[in-house]
């Protein structure tokens, strides 16, 4: 299927944006920034989906990922010692192996994309993608769709159980301590007895 030149240009720009922002996720100093880089990557992919005439999926990508990354940013701030990104941050393990694995996966999948023969069946001209998706969701694949809904509900219940304050053995945060600055050190950010001001670990 041939697209007009302008579509190709936009695709190239968006593909670059998606890959660059996806890569920046793992080499920026602040986790909040990282989650918003990921959001940019998702938005770029969403626009590419709209270019492919999957109008509902592309737009759904925007609002799903906007909310998801917002929540992610909040969790980042909760769990990071360096949420503002004022200090350099590089928390990795098995770095060389991971780079090699990432490159290997790209090469293998890229090879599959370039070398194998896929059938060339473009969209029929009279197809309405949104209506076709709606008919599928509430028609033939209703069971799958509804199961996804049930699984989401189960997830909600499970998440509340896992993270709720009251458990079988009393309040969940009882005896909970923030981690020390060095392994095995004193808990950070806890005000000392009689020390009104306290000291925080994230200035």
């Amino acid at each position, binding site marked *: 299927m041939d697209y007009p030149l302008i579509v190709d240009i936009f695709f190239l720009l968006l593909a670059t944006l998606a890959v660059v922002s996806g890569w920046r996720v793992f080499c920026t100093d*602040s986790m*909040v*920034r990282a989650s*918003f880089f990921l*959001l940019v990557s998702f938005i770029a992919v969403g626009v590419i989906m*709209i270019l492919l005439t999957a*109008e*509902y999926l592309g*737009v*759904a990508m*925007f*609002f799903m990922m*906007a*909310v998801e*990354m*917002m929540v992610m*940013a*909040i969790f980042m701030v909760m769990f990071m010692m360096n949420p*503002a*990104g*004022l200090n350099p941050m590089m928390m990795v393990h098995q770095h060389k192996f991971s780079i090699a694995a990432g490159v290997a996966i790209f090469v293998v999948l890229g090879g599959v994309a370039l070398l194998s023969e896929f059938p060339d069946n473009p969209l029929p001209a009279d197809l*309405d993608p*949104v209506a076709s998706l709606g008919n599928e969701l509430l028609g033939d694949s209703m069971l799958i769709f509804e199961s996804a809904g049930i699984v989401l509900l189960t997830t909600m219940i499970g998440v509340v159980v896992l993270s709720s304050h009251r458990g079988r053995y009393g309040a969940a945060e009882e005896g909970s301590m923030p981690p020390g600055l060095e392994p095995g050190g004193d808990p950070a950010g806890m005000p000392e007895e009689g020390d009104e001001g306290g000291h925080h670990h994230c200035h």
Partner: protein
Amino acid sequence: MIVNELILPVILVTIVLVVGAYLVAVIDGMIAAALGTPQRGGAWLAPLTQGAWLLTQQANATEAPDWRAWRLAPALYLALAATGLAVVPFSPTLIPTDLVTSVVLWGSVEALATVVIFLHGWSANTLLALIGAYRYVALGLSYILISMFVLIGVALPAESLQFSQVVASQEGLWNVIRQPLGLPLFLIVGLGMTFWGPFNLADSRDLAGGTASTVSGPSRLVWELARAAMLVAFSGVAASAFLGGWLGPWLPGPLWVMLKMLGVLAVLLLLGRLLPRVQPERCVTLMWVVLLPLSFVDLIWAGVEALL
């Protein structure tokens, strides 16, 4: 083709956005003067002098902000307002972006606005701005949910997610009468997502300006302009979702859309001046316990009506 599909929509959206934002400031000043708040200068000139004054001011700097995000956030909010206005149909043929899922696109504008407002407060690296940002995130989710349910209710009789179809489906009866709960709920969402008047919790006085507390100069001007522009875009969406958009006797369609937008804006600004600010905790309760169930009722109402 390129004139009709690219240049004309861009010009239309820009003009409506700029003129609309100016009118928001003018109407707000007039309402304030009528309610007895002393105003400096005339209502027509005051926004311009204020804007010119902000332009000449020096841009503030805080300690180690995230410069790129801080400077970009107001512009991004303005871009979101433009995106939102671009889905509003001005007549059956004059539609800047006639996406088949434009109702969902407006929903994602609301979701992305949460991100941008958080970014604006977070990147300044100051305390009050961050509190304002967190407040908006805590509330933003409930705004998105309410508006989503209300808009699904509008899409039901139209059997389409396209605003032009939504307007066309109101030929016989406007949605404001067909679904009486819809417009009031949607107006509350509008005040919330532009943090205007009673729902101004992100940029409120008790936080010394909240996310905008440390912003001055041109970027402050862009931020205020973007808030007003978002209110304009919102009024356009409300006019086409509930007030029948271009439908109306005697006058041409685009004029009707503008008049309805002005009406929605006047109501919103009056509400913004008349109602006191809600406490953040109470606002969360109000949204989740009262307004969200009401939006369910609205959706059920719309569904039953579509079946009958």
